[in-house]
């Protein structure tokens, strides 16, 4: 536990000393919220009652950014160690890769919930949007996106570990692939049939579809949410497995030193 705390503390100290890192936790999320929030206000005005449910967009944007924060909390914290060329010192200590990743997961979780709290407050203050209107449904929504975000964070970390520091672009580009197929801004039915299959295997699409169903039809598709949860859970397991394989590959091929030199 103490080693997991050390990894968490290392990131906290880093954030505490740097205002731009602190802002980074909610800067992009707030920008997204402002952009989509004002767009929904505008659409609501011009569409009158026909677009009354459009405000659900604010909810999907808040939760999408929560997912991104979890992923980046893990992935970018790992990159901080890559940029500091600190990985070798850490992994040649008694710290195990499992403890190291657990520390990063705690960092990702803390920063994501901090960011979610701020976005929830801003959505309510600026747009009178209450994300808690979903009641207990918020629990499965947040749980699925949290797990999927963790899985994405672990997966991108494993990719960078496997392919070296020069592949850090993956930390930003892999998550960017998800929203077009997740139904964050539009229903999955909008996608061509072939792409709907991709949406089906993404846990996030089941959450955003669930949110829309709750608003527009007042029905909860529990089957869909359970499927989303199972997919997210499986993705986390698969990502851990991939991370473990990547780490073994790095140890076998002596690639840890490149994180000090590249």
């Amino acid at each position: 536990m103490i080693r997991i705390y050390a990894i968490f503390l290392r990131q906290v100290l880093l954030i505490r000393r740097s205002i731009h890192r602190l802002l980074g936790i909610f800067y992009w999320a707030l920008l997204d919220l402002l952009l989509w929030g004002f767009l929904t206000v505008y659409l609501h005005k011009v569409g009158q009652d026909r677009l009354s449910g459009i405000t659900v967009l604010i909810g999907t944007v808040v939760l999408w950014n929560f997912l991104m924060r979890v992923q980046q909390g893990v992935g970018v914290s790992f990159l901080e160690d890559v940029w500091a060329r600190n990985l070798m010192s850490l992994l040649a200590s008694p710290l195990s890769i499992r403890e190291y990743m657990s520390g990063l997961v705690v960092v990702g979780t803390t920063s994501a919930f901090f960011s979610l709290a701020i976005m929830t407050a801003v959505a309510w203050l600026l747009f009178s949007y209450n994300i808690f209107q979903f009641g207990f449904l918020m629990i499965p929504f947040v749980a699925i996106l949290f797990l999927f975000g963790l899985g994405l964070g672990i997966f991108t970390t494993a990719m960078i570990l496997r392919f070296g520091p020069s592949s850090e672009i993956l930390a930003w580009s892999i998550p960017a692939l998800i929203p077009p197929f997740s139904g964050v801004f539009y229903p999955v039915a909008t996608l061509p049939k072939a792409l709907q299959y991709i949406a089906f295997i993404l846990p996030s699409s089941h959450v955003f579809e669930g949110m829309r169903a709750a608003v527009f039809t007042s029905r909860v598709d529990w089957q869909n949410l359970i499927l989303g949860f199972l997919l997210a859970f499986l993705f986390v397991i698969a990502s851990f497995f991939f991370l473990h394989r990547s780490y073994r590959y790095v140890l076998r091929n002596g690639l840890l030193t490149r994180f000090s030199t590249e």
Partner: protein
Amino acid sequence: MPEYILEVRHLSKMYKDGLEAVRDISFSIKKDETVGLLGPNGAGKTSTISMILGVLEPTSGEIDIFGKSLARSRTEILSRMNFTATYTFLPGNLTVSQNLYIFSLLYAVSHPRERVKELLHEFDLERYADTKTGVLSSGELSRVNLAKALLNEPELLLLDEPTASLDPSSADIMRKKIKAYQEERSGVGIVWTSHNMNEIEEVCDRVLFISHGKILLDGNPRTLPQEHGKKNLEELFIAVAREPLALQ
């Protein structure tokens, strides 16, 4: 307690591209012994140290530290040893005391704050305690790295060119600090790599010459050159680097 702190048996490392960095080497280090690992660049010293640190998987062979297998008791062993190397870094965006504190937690030091204070004092780093590590000079950084390596009062210390970037005076201070640490605590074993033969002669009880991944010579640094018809350790080093087969 085992007589040897470190035992390396038939250790080999072959990389994917066919490069054989370490070829069937065996050696051991006793308590209170300082062993120099010498050899030209690319001889296999860093690969050997990386395997002892558990960050490089051997192709074959075994490493036992404190009488236990490194492969099976990694965490327990690594918390009783430490290292400093020219190719490892501490986060430059944290202060000296923050870095030392984080590593004291990683090594599960029992009174971390007190130990950090003690080392800051011992290495004359108190005035840099709140300075970001990234802005320190190489001499100051070497002191911080050595302080980090002594945080957990290791019984086995791996030093990969600990004085490489230091001026002669700072290097001398570092050598004295390391030797003082070893003398103050009984049973500490040290593996020391360096390209400075005078330094090796001064600090090591025994040297291992490695070339092309193999141990060619093993002996006392003060008598080994004469045994091989060389004037001094530097001459012997050059001979190992240029004509290793002649010495086999």
